[in-house]
């Protein structure tokens, strides 16, 4: 205890500013905290499953097989990322409250917004890293499968004596369209966007209720309703339909729930349709808007929260 605690002069009264470094510290801690919850083996199982699906299926025709593989793996990936986002977020805040780690964190000069943002980024960063790994595995499997299928079809055509240059070119085109293209990455990006929006909703609910079960159940409900957003909107916009209370409820639901169908590109990607870059930008913009609004409301709730 020699020159350990020097007395500095006056205490600064300047407001504490938002600090990206602090947010990063919190996000990184959140990420490592989640990593210790044994998620990596889960990820590994998923990758093995994808590989098995890719190589194990019997050959029907190259186009269908590639398409089916994409539909299945992307669908599972979507569910996986949403479930992870919701559950992880629902666990984090109540845990910090219960363990009183929140007391020690917020009694430091840490604005509550930094804390909330750090938690959100931590979860999103983990989802993103998982998706990047899986995207790589998917791409590899798809590429291998694509070449294998092309070879097989070529051999088939050859033995049928139908390997005229036009037919081969056509075959190559079909396989390439269903194979590894940028579309796959856009689909994974869309999956990430949807999971991010749902995670932000979970964070908001978790700040309101600080109960894990409540957050999980309600966020799942909102996710399901969010997929039928267009239906609710149509219903609300039709004049003379349903009683007033039902109409008000639907209107509120439409106002509260995000329109998650905006991010459904998986089907068109699986069908080998091209996702235009404009659509990607639009999707990203919509997600950013949703997240900003939800995060803002979260902040308003959390600043007032009694700990």
């Amino acid at each position, binding site marked *: 205890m020699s020159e350990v605690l020097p007395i500095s002069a006056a205490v600064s009264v300047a407001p504490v500013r938002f600090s990206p470094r*602090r947010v990063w510290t919190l996000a990184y*801690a959140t990420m490592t905290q989640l990593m210790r919850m044994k998620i990596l083996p889960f990820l590994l199982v998923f990758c093995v499953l994808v590989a098995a699906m890719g190589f194990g299926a019997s050959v029907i025709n190259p186009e269908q097989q590639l398409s089916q593989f994409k539909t299945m793996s992307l669908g599972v990936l979507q569910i996986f990322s949403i479930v992870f986002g919701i559950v992880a977020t629902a666990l984090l805040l109540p845990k910090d409250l219960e363990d009183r*780690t929140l007391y020690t964190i917020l*009694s430091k000069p840490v604005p509550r917004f930094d804390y909330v943002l750090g938690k959100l980024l931590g979860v999103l960063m983990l989802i993103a890293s998982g998706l990047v790994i899986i995207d790589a595995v998917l791409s590899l499997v798809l590429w291998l499968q694509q070449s294998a299928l092309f070879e097989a079809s070529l051999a088939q055509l050859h033995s049928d004596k139908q390997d005229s240059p036009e037919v081969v070119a056509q075959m190559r085109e079909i396989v390439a369209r269903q194979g590894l293209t940028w579309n796959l990455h856009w689909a994974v990006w869309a999956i990430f966007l949807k999971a991010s929006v749902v995670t932000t909703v979970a964070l908001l609910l978790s700040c309101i209720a600080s109960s894990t079960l409540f957050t999980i159940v309600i966020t799942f409900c909102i996710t399901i309703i969010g997929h039928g957003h267009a239906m609710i909107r149509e219903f609300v916009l039709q004049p003379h339909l349903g009683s007033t209370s039902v109409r008000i409820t639907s209107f509120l639901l439409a106002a509260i729930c995000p329109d998650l169908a905006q991010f459904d590109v998986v089907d068109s990607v699986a069908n080998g349709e091209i996702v235009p870059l404009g659509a990607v930008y639009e999707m990203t913009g919509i997600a950013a808007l949703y997240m900003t609004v939800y995060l803002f409301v979260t902040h308003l709730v959390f600043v007032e929260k009694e700990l």
Partner: protein
Amino acid sequence: MSATPAVSVNHLTKVFKGSLGKGAFRAVHDVSLTVNVGEVYGLIGPNGSGKSTTMKAILGLLKPTAGDTRIFGIPSTEVASRRSVGFLPENPYFYKHLNGRETLHFYGKLCGMGGEKLKSRAEEMLALTGLEDAATRRVGGYSKGMLQRLGLAQALIHEPQLLVLDEPTAGVDPSGSRIIRDLIIEFRTRGITVLVTSHLLEQMQEVCDRVGIMAHGRMVREGRVEDLIAVENQTEMVLENASPELLAKIDALVKAEGGGTRMLRSGHPRTTLERLFLEATNEPKKP
């Protein structure tokens, strides 16, 4: 020393709302206190008297129902008020996946520290709290006393000028608790202000300049320790190796003196703060 007090609590009232409006509970009732810069202030009181609640309000973790709290003149509602406070909550707990050293680094970074400065500061704090050997062990496996020590280390990491310690010695072994007491005395010589609660009244009497005694959410006594525990019309005599004969002689002398002089008791002296504590907190509850 500046005129702004380190901590000021003005007519603080905290009511916890029960669920569905039922069972509202008034944990703190119109409490005012001032901790001046450089002094050690002890808050004592029975379990559930509102000490921790008052501290949480000071740190902005709870919103007062009425009244306000300030740190170095800055309202607790502002984040800036927490810039030079170190807080040790009761029964502290940390991220159990981090080890002791990583925990200190985490809290240091939250305070905007970094690099070599933070590293050396963290080592210093580990040494100070006797946790060097446990520095690489997961906090999840720490004992209660070790968590308490780590809590003290994280409270000190950013060299705060005010320390708010909620039962720093709870669960700490006798030698550790003595070390903490000596630390508090050392903080005072360095001009660091300390607001502390503890149930170890003997230690509180030794380290505190002033104490406030809380009971049922109210401040029932407040003042300088010497003033509070001095009983004006009584004198305490402490003798060493006194024979029974000598004691009998003294007793006879006192009796011979007559008038209002009486021997109230003799025997081993009690901690006087403890006596005061029991008196003050056993007074009938105010409505």
